[in-house]
């Protein structure tokens, strides 16, 4: 599989750089609060940190409002206490029931409680008037004079004297390394995948999670899987697979708790092969095989919606407009293929481990929000439509205020020349190699190892161990030999290294969780184990540099 995956791209070869690593200038920027990422979480982090009195700088690998998964999210949840038929407590309890205890009710409730305020602010900025979000995102930042630096690939967090001191990265447009000194940093870097096909993960490769892990942050949620299928016809075509959703203006969703988009379809495909037709649970999907992921009581797969299309016909379903003329996400339409979002967990279930409800990590001064924070807001399964975008907005705001508050208690730190020299060397290493592995080729080998249904979705110990052996080989003998000839390839090299690290985390966490629950399914441990596994898995770098894993009981904060 790995060999097949590599077809069409260049593996080991001599490197002929088009730019000279020695020409890179170093530019320095200071801020009280550095926000990394320009999606929904980054927007609110910047606005609220500024409004709390901080000098804020936003840095993004892509364009404000047009990178990460934010531009493709078209529903945002708002809990309106005046119209909701359930109380906040009832809402939170219902999410916990669907999530089989995997959610953190503090973040579940926080999301709902603050969602309407965030949605109303977005309305003021014109967010709901256009399918494209950049202009609306610019409004509050321009009004506040918050600078935004786009197309900067942040590769390193900098930790000095035990707390965060800033970050560093490089420009995609010119030979420049940027060093950002900050009193606090908020990672709004989203989640990521293995550059899969058909789901708009696009530029997300777990960059924030990986750079935080490397400086000692704890990471969680890597064993869960987002189960979005893709379409069999042109499976790589994100836009086509989502059938017009990207053209649509965003809308507001109300309360409706579900248990969606785990690995039910993966199990069905594994047990009976293709074709798998119709949509995921809740959209009319029909389970055709016995066994598989267990569903909580009261959240069984519903049949086709009343008045809906016959099996095999395009149902439109969730995401379709009321006329039914425009369709919904992949999986709502005819034959499907799996793995369109491979490498990504359920939104908000993976990322930095929060030590409190303020989105703070175990590293003083380092915060995360949205998909970069393993808040378990929704749990390890999709529970509330639109809560992903709402959660990013709410957590961004919470983290922004907290990071600004933290910044008032500390001063900017000096970044040692030793640290800077090491970072510069690491950033530019792929450009300096005279030969090496092409990052595209290594990525495709990684995809071949990780994406098959029998590896990362329908899991069992021997295969997980086999995949881990491959990934450790990539970690030890390919990551150090990635080459880059230009700035685009330099970005790919760093992204590839991050995906390999994330794959190692996913496999080790999948091996450790010897049970099945929500979006994690072990064929050799097919049932939920409430005696041993009422716990999340945290991953961190041990003192010897090796990856360590630990349990953290559900509904608790790190010790």
């Amino acid at each position, binding site marked *: 599989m790995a060999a*097949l*995956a590599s*077809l*069409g*791209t260049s593996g080991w070869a001599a490197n002929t750089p088009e730019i000279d690593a020695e020409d890179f200038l170093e530019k320095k920027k200071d801020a009280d609060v550095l926000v990394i990422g320009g999606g929904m979480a980054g927007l609110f982090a910047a606005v609220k940190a500024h409004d709390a009195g901080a000098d804020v700088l936003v840095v993004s690998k*892509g*364009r404000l409002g*047009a*990178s*990460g998964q934010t*531009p*493709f999210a078209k529903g945002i949840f708002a809990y309106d206490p005046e119209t909701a038929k359930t109380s906040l407590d009832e809402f939170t309890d219902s999410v916990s029931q669907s999530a089989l205890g995997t959610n953190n009710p503090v973040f579940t409730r926080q999301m709902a409680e603050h969602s309407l305020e965030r949605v109303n602010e977005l309305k003021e900025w014109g967010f709901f008037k256009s*399918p*494209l979000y*950049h202009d609306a995102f610019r409004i509050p930042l321009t009004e506040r004079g918050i600078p935004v630096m*786009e*197309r900067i690939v942040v590769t390193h967090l900098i930790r000095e004297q035990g707390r965060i001191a800033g970050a560093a990265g490089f420009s995609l447009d010119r030979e420049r390394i940027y060093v950002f000194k900050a009193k606090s940093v908020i990672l709004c870097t989203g989640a990521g995948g293995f*550059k899969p*096909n*058909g789901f*708009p993960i*696009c*530029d997300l490769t777990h960059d924030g999670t990986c750079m935080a892990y490397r400086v000692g942050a704890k990471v969680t949620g890597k064993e869960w899987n987002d189960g979005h299928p*893709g379409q*069999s*016809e*042109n*499976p*790589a*075509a*994100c*836009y*086509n697979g989502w059938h017009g959703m*990207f*053209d649509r203006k965003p809308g507001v969703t109300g309360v409706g708790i579900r248990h969606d988009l785990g690995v039910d379809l*993966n199990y069905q*495909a*594994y047990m009976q*092969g*293709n074709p*798998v037709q119709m949509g995921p649970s809740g959209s009319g999907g029909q389970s055709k095989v016995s066994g598989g992921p267990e569903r909580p009581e009261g959240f069984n797969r519903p049949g086709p919606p009343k008045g809906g299309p016959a099996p095999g016909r395009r149902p439109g379903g969730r995401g379709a407009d009321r006329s039914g003329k425009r369709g919904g996400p992949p999986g709502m339409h005819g*034959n*499907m*293929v*799996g*793995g*369109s979002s*491979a490498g990504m967990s359920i939104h908000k279930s993976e990322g930095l481990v929060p030590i409190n409800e303020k989105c703070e990590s175990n590293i003083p001064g380092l915060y995360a929000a949205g998909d970069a924070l393993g808040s378990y807001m929704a749990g390890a399964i999709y529970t509330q439509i639109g809560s992903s975008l709402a959660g990013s907005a709410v957590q961004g705001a919470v983290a922004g205020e907290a990071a600004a508050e933290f910044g008032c208690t500390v001063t900017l730190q000096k970044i040692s020349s030793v640290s800077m020299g090491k970072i510069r060397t690491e950033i530019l290493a792929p450009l300096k190699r005279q030969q090496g592995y092409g990052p*595209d080729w290594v990525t*495709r080998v990684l*995809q*071949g190892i990780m*994406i*098959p*249904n029998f590896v*990362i*979705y329908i899991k069992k110990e021997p295969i997980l161990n086999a995949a881990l052996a491959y990934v450790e080989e990539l970690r030890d003998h390919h990551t150090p030999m990635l080459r880059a000839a230009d700035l*685009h390839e330099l*970005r*790919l090299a760093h992204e590839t290294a991050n995906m390999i690290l994330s794959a190692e985390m996913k496999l080790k966490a999948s091996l450790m969780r010897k049970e099945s629950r929500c979006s994690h399914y072990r064929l050799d441990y097919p049932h939920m184990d409430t005696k041993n596994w009422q716990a999340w898995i945290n991953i961190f770098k041990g003192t010897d540099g090796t990856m360590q894993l630990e349990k953290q009981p559900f509904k608790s904060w790190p010790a």
Partner: protein
Amino acid sequence: MSVNTIRGCIGCGTCVKTCPTDVFRMDGETGKAVIRYPDACQICHLCRLYCPENVITISPEKSIPVIVSWG
């Protein structure tokens, strides 16, 4: 092959800034956008949707083989 053509580019650079996967670059000589890294295209259409002149064409086929979980 994913992103196909840019015909009628006015050189605003919006597609370069917008593409999440860094497919485009500005041509130093012509001052217009070029499709520099087509293999990176994830066919999300953001470039086309943001292009003020609507001059970018995109096809749904990926230029390199696609890895899926099943199918």
